[in-house]
């Protein structure tokens, strides 16, 4: 009897142990194909009176360098005054192609507010993981606060708003060290031939012509786009939309020219393993004549190089087309910004906070970071005067004839991954332009046939 009692106790203990070690489901079903309606106009939240009850919201946002920390801190300080009962718990965004946020979505653990780019918006809207903000755009009068030229950053192609934007249509710029050019008797190139000549001269003098942080794939795409837009203003955007093929003359020539420039020594050795810090250091220490980055680089480069640095218009296809194409820029904006989880406990508050943060984020960039390329209007005095490069850009913005997109702003994820990989390969010297055209067109044809 005692023996059976002992055995029974042992079995009970073992089963308790087994069940306690198996992860219990938390009831959050990642399978979102439910009847729940995530539209902001339906359903009821557990709203408390936001004026009185302290509310804690999780926010997933970039917080890596001054360009992201300063605006975020500025917006947070403003939020504390505007909505003192709201506390934000920051979950720093990882630079991981959206892995972390997509994992959050899959596990039903999305933060209340998160920064979303077009890729995230497109992925999340089909699986009901992002709140439609149309109602809130109207409620907060957000559209009236937008720059007319930046309206493309507010609404996606389906006409809905999924994120409150702060960044405007940003641009790819080709920075150059004026002193290096002058010392070596090189004129700022206005055409491809002049650029090729400049590359050869700099190489002969032991100067790196272009410092490119090609370990990140987007600069490789941007470099390709710079050349492509000299003949086709729509650049990679046309390919992304499926309207173009890389075998078209403009893209083929762009690829051929990049290969030629790389063989002539355009890039530092091991460029595909250079990160931003290394490439920027080469440029700022005067070892490289040119540098490619977004216009947000103006602040940092001016701080180090002062008057020695400027940006140039992209070298044209040939000298005769320089004036007509100089305002066709690479880069651009798209729907992105602060988005809200449809499962946020305090949806209305989260949407209000998201809208407020985006306005203040943009305000800080405009007034304190010397960056006028924002999505929303700002009614505050400029604290930090614009550096000369930004002044020059500000005067050119109204003249811009076309923009394209940054790699992260491309709508088709498969095309984005392919063009990132193949443009990076183009910079190695062992990958021919013909292979690039063939491989990229194969991808575009596959995308077209699957649509």
């Amino acid at each position, binding site marked *: 009897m005692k023996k059976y009692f002992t055995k029974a106790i*042992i*079995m009970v203990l*073992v089963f308790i*142990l*087994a069940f306690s*070690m*198996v*992860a219990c489901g938390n009831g959050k079903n*990642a*399978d*979102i*194909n439910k009847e729940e309606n995530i539209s902001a106009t339906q359903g009821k939240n557990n709203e408390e009176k936001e004026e009185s009850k302290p509310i804690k919201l999780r926010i997933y946002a970039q917080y890596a360098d001054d360009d992201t920390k300063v605006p975020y801190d500025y917006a947070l300080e403003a939020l504390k005054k505007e909505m003192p009962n709201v506390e934000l718990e920051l979950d720093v965004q990882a630079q*991981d*192609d*959206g*892995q972390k946020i*997509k994992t959050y*979505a*899959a596990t039903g653990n999305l933060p209340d507010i998160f920064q979303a780019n077009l*890729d995230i918006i497109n*992925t*999340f809207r*089909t*699986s009901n*993981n992002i709140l439609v903000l149309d109602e809130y755009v109207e409620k907060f009068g957000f559209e009236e606060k937008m720059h007319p030229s930046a309206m493309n950053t507010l609404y996606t192609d389906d006409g809905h708003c999924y994120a409150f934007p702060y960044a405007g249509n940003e641009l790819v710029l080709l920075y150059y060290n004026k002193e290096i050019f002058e010392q070596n008797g090189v004129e700022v190139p206005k055409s491809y031939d002049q650029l090729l000549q400049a590359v050869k001269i700099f190489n002969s003098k032991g100067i790196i012509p272009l410092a490119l942080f*090609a*370990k990140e*794939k987007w600069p490789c795409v941007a470099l390709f786009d710079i050349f492509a837009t000299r003949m086709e203003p729509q650049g990679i955007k046309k390919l992304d939309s499926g309207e173009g093929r890389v075998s078209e003359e403009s893209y083929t020539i762009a690829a051929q020219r990049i290969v030629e420039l790389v063989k002539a020594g355009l890039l*530092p*050795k*091991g*460029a*595909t*393993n250079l990160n931003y810090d290394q490439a920027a250091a080469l440029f700022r220490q005067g070892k490289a004549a040119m540098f490619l980055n977004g216009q947000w680089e103006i602040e940092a480069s001016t701080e180090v190089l002062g008057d020695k640095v400027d940006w140039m218009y992209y070298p044209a296809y040939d000298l005769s087309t320089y004036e007509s194409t100089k305002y066709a820029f690479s880069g651009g904006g798209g729907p992105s910004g602060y988005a809200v989880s449809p499962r946020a406990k305090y949806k209305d508050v989260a949407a209000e906070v998201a809208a407020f943060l985006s306005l203040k984020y943009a305000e800080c960039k405009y007034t304190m970071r010397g960056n006028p390329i924002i999505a929303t209007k700002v009614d505050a005095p400029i604290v930090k005067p614009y550096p000369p490069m930004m002044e020059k850009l500000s005067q050119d913005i109204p003249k811009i004839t076309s923009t394209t997109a940054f790699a992260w702003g491309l709508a088709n*994820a*498969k095309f*984005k*991954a392919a063009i990132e*990989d*193949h443009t*990076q*390969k183009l*910079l*190695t010297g*062992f*990958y021919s332009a013909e292979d690039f055209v063939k*491989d990229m067109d194969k991808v575009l044809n596959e995308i077209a046939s699957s649509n």
Partner: protein
Amino acid sequence: MYKYLRNKVAILIFTLPALIVFSVIVFYPIIQTFYKSMFDWNGLGKGTFIFLDNYKRLLKDSIFHISIRNGLIFAAVLAVLQIGIGTFLAFAVSDIALKGRNFLRITYFIPVVLSITVVCQLWLSIYNEEFGLINKLMEQLGFLYRQNWLSSEKSAIYAVAVVNAWQYMGYHFALILAAVKSLPEQYFEAARIDGAGKIKAHISITIPLLYETYKFCLILAVTGGLNAFANMYIMTNGGPGDVTYTLTFLMYRSAFRVNEFGYGCAAAAVLVIECLLATIIINKSFRRKQITY
């Protein structure tokens, strides 16, 4: 004790918790992966059942072919370097005549405990084409040879594999050393009496007796090579282009860059089958009668 070992119910009860944990954490996700590989799925919705279309697509995908080839290269490099150098060092350290054995034993194991990020950053500096140790050493020695270690289509995957081999060689060294230490001394005494030198003794006695250890080390090296991801993610991000892709990297790309989780699961399923096949082949190749003297 005999009574308990005969009691199958007791055995089942005591192994059940571990079995449940293993099933939940290992077996169930594998089954799920195979299941989801038959869907066109973005990781968030329900997905569309497409049966084997993902596998058909994989077979035509050039990135898949590159990944398979790189996985095999990686596995081969790990097997040769980790086991080869591990064996040499273990035999050397097991020799009591060698001074500083204890220090060497610890030193060889240090890379194993380092963070993979630290190791990769270290080797990124060593491989740097402009200022790296290897190219600079060539320059100092007067050689003209320079190599774009991580940017070259030919050398990139080997360069990354060497990093992994270097880091985990100490692990195989420790395993082989422990096995060598466990061998009875009388075999070596007998060999010495018969006039065998150290090398002959190792070839004729040590290596045959370490058969099971080598089998285990080979399985670890090969499956580790096929599964490689972290090194290429940190050092090259799969690049330049897709030159250093492996199946795990293809999985990552499909899932997180292209939002094709179903396709990524198909790559994962192929990887599981590949590792399983490798293990079966190695087990079959190493199957023979236990050697006793």
